[in-house]
């Protein structure tokens, strides 16, 4: 086990200032304390070489967990062991083995070329010259930013900049890399390239922890997903299990030769058990959600064929958004 977390708890105290003038004046003398339970004793563990997606609505406790795992924040209670050490107790020794990429916070210096920032990192992480050159060359080739890294950061496109942020984070060959919204704002091609890069490095044994709202990222990268909500873990399993979480539901889009599940006057006709109408595209075209534990697919398809004649059909998994939204909305 590379990362081991037990009973992780974090309570923040915030001060209420009040909004009306009267409350504000009062607050100069006495402020109301309120406690925010960001993490309520969570447990999980991650093995070397895993690629885990951390999901959760804003304020769920994701970034708190990330900050604790990176040694930046101290918890109120609980044990965390990463790479054999406690992140916040042995901070300097610990962080020399991890890297982080923040989609919204840049580590590069704005007015100078990324390569100069890389050299700063060399001095900070004490990377021997040979290793440094080799790693930098290799990473810049993988991400094809050889020329771009020589230009001031402000002249680069967002995609090029993010690639350089990745290089910055991995120059010192970290064993674990934390990613926080790494593809935010990028175009499709740039996103693809970055995902490819993450896959490649993951294959070489680097553990990735990904925090994101981009469900595309999650689907394409993560094999395992941990969903946090209200400071607790509500899901921790493989991504394939995520969809099955709400029963074996499928989305069936059907086009009938004649009216499908509605009469000539346009009124809706009753659907079989376990089937709900998601969207009526036209009298003949419908989008249905089918709980296959109640009515199996073949029965539904046969029914449509018998009642309206089947012209076109598509069967899809429940979109991951629906599942996530459900998990977020749960209390």
């Amino acid at each position, binding site marked *: 086990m590379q990362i081991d977390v037990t009973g992780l708890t974090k309570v923040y105290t915030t001060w209420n200032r009040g909004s009306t003038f009267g409350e504000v004046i009062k607050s100069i003398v006495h402020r109301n304390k309120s406690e925010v339970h960001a993490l309520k004793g969570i447990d999980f563990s991650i093995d070397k070489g895993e690629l885990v997606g951390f999901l959760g609505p804003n304020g769920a406790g994701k970034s708190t967990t990330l900050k604790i795992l990176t040694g930046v924040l*101290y918890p109120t209670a609980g044990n965390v062991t990463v790479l054999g050490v406690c992140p916040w107790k042995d901070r300097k020794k610990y962080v020399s083995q991890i890297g982080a990429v923040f989609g919204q916070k840049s580590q590069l210096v704005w007015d*100078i070329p990324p390569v100069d920032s890389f050299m700063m990192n060399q001095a900070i992480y004490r990377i021997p010259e040979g290793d440094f050159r080799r790693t930098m060359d290799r990473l810049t080739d993988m991400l094809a930013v050889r020329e771009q890294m020589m230009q001031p950061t402000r002249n680069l496109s967002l995609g090029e900049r993010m690639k350089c942020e990745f290089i910055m984070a991995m120059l010192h060959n970290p064993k674990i890399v934390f990613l926080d919204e790494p593809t935010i704002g990028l175009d499709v091609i740039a996103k693809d390239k970055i995902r490819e890069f993450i896959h490649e490095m993951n294959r070489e044994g680097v553990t990735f922890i990904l925090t994101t709202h981009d469900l595309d990222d999650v689907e394409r990268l993560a094999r395992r997903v941990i969903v946090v909500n209200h400071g607790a873990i509500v899901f921790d399993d493989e991504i394939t299990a995520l969809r099955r979480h709400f029963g074996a539901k499928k989305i069936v889009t059907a086009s009938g030769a004649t009216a499908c599940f509605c009469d000539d006057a346009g009124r809706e006709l009753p659907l079989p058990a376990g089937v709900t109408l998601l969207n009526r595209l036209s009298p003949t075209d419908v989008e249905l959600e089918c709980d296959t534990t109640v009515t199996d697919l073949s029965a539904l398809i046969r029914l449509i064929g018998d009642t309206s004649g089947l012209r076109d059909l598509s069967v899809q998994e429940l979109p991951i958004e629906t599942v996530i939204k459900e998990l977020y909305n749960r209390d």
Partner: protein
Amino acid sequence: MKHWTWMLFTRSLRTSFAERAAYRGDFILSFTVSFLLELITPLVTLLIYNAGTSFPGWTMEEALLIQAVFLLARGIAFPLFFGMVWIVFDQAVQGTFEITLLKPRSPLLLTMLRGIDIEGFSRMLGGILLVAFTVNRLPAPPLSGWLLFILFVSLSILILFGFALILAASLFVWIGNARVIELMESILVFSRYPGTIFAKPLQWAFAVGIPLSMIALFPAEALLGRFSIQMFFAIPASLVFAGAGYLFWNRMIRRYAGGGG
């Protein structure tokens, strides 16, 4: 092992230079202006003496010497230590201090090096020039005077470092308050004048409490061959002040990271 920190230092200097050089015209202007700003107090002193009066017990050159030493000490301390204040300001406001904490180095070292501002060295040059100019017009100080001067200026820089630590640390809790520098300036103003203008109790406070007199007055008096008992109490006071600043910085970082171990 040691050479890594030296490498970090030289690369930080280079980065600071490259950053500033990206806006050449502004750099030259800022470089000049920070120097000119420091000349205001000496100018005022000049105008006062020109008007036919003086600081009792001090000739114009002697009074200017105090301000020259202030310029020199500031010129060394500010480019090295005070950029840190603005780095912490930005990082506290934007919530990006985590990035500094993610690196395997002392956050103080990283923030200080990131904040090195070579534009500030114009003050040092100005200070050297002004000190040379005034010392030239005064009786040559003995060797002991110079030695004490070097000791006192070193302590002076240490005190200013303490100020920088306190300012930067306070920005962790007083997030986004750009006026902390003003607060410090309103305190430092008392270090630029002959000590005799203050009542005795205050003179002692500026030697033993917050050792403002060590910043410019005592080094100048050392060169002038004037010694006072307050000077020797100010030596430990300077170390205590800088130490307090360092403790305060550590405390605030720990608080930023959520307190306790």
